[in-house]
């Protein structure tokens, strides 16, 4: 009997830090609020001073597979969201030591691994996970999150009760903690595009950083990092060693990620990374492979031509959706509800629609290519940093800035603007010692948002986001080259809290779909971190090693394509559609602006009318106006959705399957209660 379920799940729970018996009511609305992550059943465990909950999606409907799951003595319980890919090997190892298993699930491996290796157990896991263990032996709650932060874990405290959950919604639904916006947290997002852990846009909620564990007991709380991004250790690997090594790692990573006993689909963008992961997946599986793609009505964002080429080349079964401006505007509030933070871009919205397509076709797991751009140097920002740094060595050179034209041909297609583009991209190019050299232009551009804050908000902001970011950087950061620093900032901030969260976990899980990230296998990352940046990106050739691997596996047109950044139309989606204009108008309503209090209503109105009139005149919105107005729009929607008139908390309904486990008062006996 295989009880393995997939990691589309939600976790929630709480402990009484004073050893008292915690209330039993809050867990129900907490789990009900996570229904989208796990709609097929809810498991609740009540121990002496803990309550652990689990919302699950089952692949194979079996009586077992309920969580929480226990060790042999039933004094260690776990609620788990995610995947431990190497559970087969770990189980073998743990059984050899003498542990006895009662299910075939990867979840059970966690409790025994915890018994065996204590808080160091996550070092043994290869996977994507967020879990909570309650250990009755020393009344300790143990929280843990995967190395890259694929799966989320949030926590908060209400008096003597410590609460955790996969999403903030569940903490709110507990009714134990009133949610408040955090001006500092929101200001971080409007400065860095992301939060610096553990801060969130909610004043009283923290996020467990990736690669961290947290131990919560009546004696106090400790947070510890169990894995660090290997930085600065470079070896001289030959091109052949790089290619062969990476190929092996990709192959192994995919085989591990295909261990689900479910049909696996693949996201196919038409770019190098997803084409390659799909091609590898095709080779690793004998069952028909289904691919899913996004198409855009607006040709500037559309890649369907390349997607079509890959589909024909690999012979996959294929489904796609065509996204319109109307879709983007109309679903933007849904994306914010899912992401639980203001979004500076609409790009997560199409991903939300894509996961809905996946779900509607009966798929629950997709292989996807995120991470390659960060670890193998694919993004333009790395090339930009390289060019700027190269110019700084010979500041008077007239020739060196011409490289920018090769880097951003699409910005230089309007040859008229060439000189202005150069001036823009060379701003501050001599300041190579700036810790955020690579991100400087973006950070500076983003500061324009602050001009629209209200005086009261300005007064309340005490913390400088950049200083917080710098403090959070790993040891050795400042000794790295500009390009490596840029890479670390991308990985430590935008990868986990934007790409994998707002544009990843949240918008996939909103439709009960689980992404599996081939390039985020930590052994693969440890391998590629040994490779010098110049091997990954010789000159301005991004992801060279991947392209070498792709030779012979992919059509040459895909290999020779220039990096095409995934984007979606932002403010234009709102200005060009009636539905979008209505959403914008409502969000910029002066009363709403006053209620939130972050933005100055008068300034916002001035900007909005300028943007509307300019867009009507020439159909254009400037980059800076787009950024500001997107921020105001998403900030206001965020405020309204999370702090506005409250909707009654969700409850279980008559059709829900709820499984209760209660720790008995005598001899640790358990009573199994089945309701509904």
């Amino acid at each position, binding site marked *: 009997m295989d009880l393995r379920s997939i990691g589309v799940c939600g976790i929630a729970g709480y402990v009484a830090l004073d050893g008292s018996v915690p209330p039993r009511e809050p867990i129900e609305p907490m789990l009900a609020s996570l229904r989208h992550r796990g709609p097929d059943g809810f498991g609740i465990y009540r121990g002496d001073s803990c309550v652990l909950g689990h919302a699950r999606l089952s692949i194979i409907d079996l009586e077992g597979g309920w969580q929480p799951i226990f060790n042999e003595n039933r004094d260690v319980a776990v609620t788990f969201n995610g995947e431990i890919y190497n559970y087969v090997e770990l189980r073998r190892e743990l059984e050899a030591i003498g542990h006895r298993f009662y299910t075939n699930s990867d979840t059970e491996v966690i409790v025994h691994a915890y018994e065996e290796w204590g808080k160091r157990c996550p070092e043994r896991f290869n996977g994507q996970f967020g879990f909570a263990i309650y250990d009755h032996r020393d009344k300790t709650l143990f929280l843990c999150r995967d190395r890259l932060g694929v799966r989320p874990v949030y926590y908060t405290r209400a008096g003597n009760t410590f609460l955790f959950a996969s999403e903030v919604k569940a903490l709110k639904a507990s009714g134990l903690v009133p949610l408040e916006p955090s001006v500092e947290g929101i200001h971080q997002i409007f400065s860095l595009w992301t939060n610096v852990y553990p801060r969130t846009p909610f004043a009283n909620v923290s996020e467990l950083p990736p690669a961290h564990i947290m131990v919560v007991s009546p004696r106090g709380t400790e947070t510890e990092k169990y894995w660090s991004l290997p930085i600065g250790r470079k070896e001289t690997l030959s091109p052949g060693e790089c290619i062969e090594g990476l190929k092996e790692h990709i192959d192994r990573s995919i085989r591990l990620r295909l261990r689900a006993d479910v049909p696996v689909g693949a996201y196919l963008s038409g770019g190098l990374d997803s084409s390659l992961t799909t091609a590898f997946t095709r080779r690793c599986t004998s069952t028909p492979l289904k691919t899913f793609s996004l198409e855009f009505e607006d040709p500037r964002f559309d890649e369907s031509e390349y997607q079509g080429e890959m589909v024909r080349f690999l012979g996959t079964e294929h489904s796609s959706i065509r996204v319109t401006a109307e879709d983007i505007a109309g679903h933007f509030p849904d994306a914010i509800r899912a992401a639980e933070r203001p979004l500076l871009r609409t790009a997560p919205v199409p991903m939300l629609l894509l996961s809905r397509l996946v779900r509607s076709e009966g798929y629950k797991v997709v292989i996807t290519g995120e991470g390659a751009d960060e670890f193998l140097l694919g993004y333009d920002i790395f090339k930009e940093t390289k060019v700027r740094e190269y110019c700084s060595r010979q500041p008077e050179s007239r020739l060196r800035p011409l490289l920018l034209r090769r880097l951003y041909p699409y*910005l230089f297609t309007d040859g*008229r603007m060439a000189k*202005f583009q150069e001036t823009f991209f060379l701003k501050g190019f001599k300041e190579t010692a700036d810790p955020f050299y690579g991100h400087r232009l973006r950070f500076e551009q983003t500061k324009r948002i602050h*001009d*629209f804050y209200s005086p009261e908000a300005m007064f309340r902001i005490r913390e400088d986001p950049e200083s917080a970011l710098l403090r959070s950087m790993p040891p050795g950061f400042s000794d790295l080259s500009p390009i490596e620093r840029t890479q670390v900032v991308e990985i430590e901030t935008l990868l986990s809290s934007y790409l994998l969260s707002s544009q990843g976990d949240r918008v996939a899980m909103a439709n009960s779909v689980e992404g599996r990230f081939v390039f985020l296998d930590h052994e693969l990352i440890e391998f590629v971190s040994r490779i010098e940046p110049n091997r990954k990106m010789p000159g301005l050739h991004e992801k060279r090693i991947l392209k070498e691997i792709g030779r012979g596996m992919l059509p040459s047109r895909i290999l020779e394509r220039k990096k095409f950044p995934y984007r979606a139309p932002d403010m234009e989606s709102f200005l060009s559609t009636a539905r979008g204009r209505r959403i914008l108008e409502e969000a910029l309503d002066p009363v709403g602006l006053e209620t939130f209090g972050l933005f100055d209503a008068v300034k916002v109105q001035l900007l909005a009318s300028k943007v509307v009139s300019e867009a009507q005149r020439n159909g254009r919105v*400037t980059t*800076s106006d787009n950024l500001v107005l997107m921020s105001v729009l998403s900030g206001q929607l965020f405020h309204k959705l999370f702090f506005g008139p409250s909707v009654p908390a969700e409850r279980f309904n008559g059709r829900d399957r709820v499984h209760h486990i209660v720790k008995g008062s005598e001899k640790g006996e358990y009573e199994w209660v089945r309701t509904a």
Partner: protein
Amino acid sequence: MGSDGIRGKIRDYIQDRFMIGKPLNSLKDNDQLLEKGILDSTGVLELVGFIEEYFAFSVEDAELLPDNLGSVENIAVYIERKTGQRVPG
């Protein structure tokens, strides 16, 4: 319009359109518009549209240079040169 008239007009336009939210009257004629982040390349296009419309001449591609459009002062000198003072208003 005298030459200060042109400067005043340009200053007002830039402050109205690109400096919403910034302290009033904070723009100096020699402020570098790109370096200070007041204009980005899309903003330059908007500015050019305004100049062409208001001062009734067309800006040649070869003239789209920071030297001509990088500050209020540069813009005014450029407009004066193009119009030979033949400015409306």
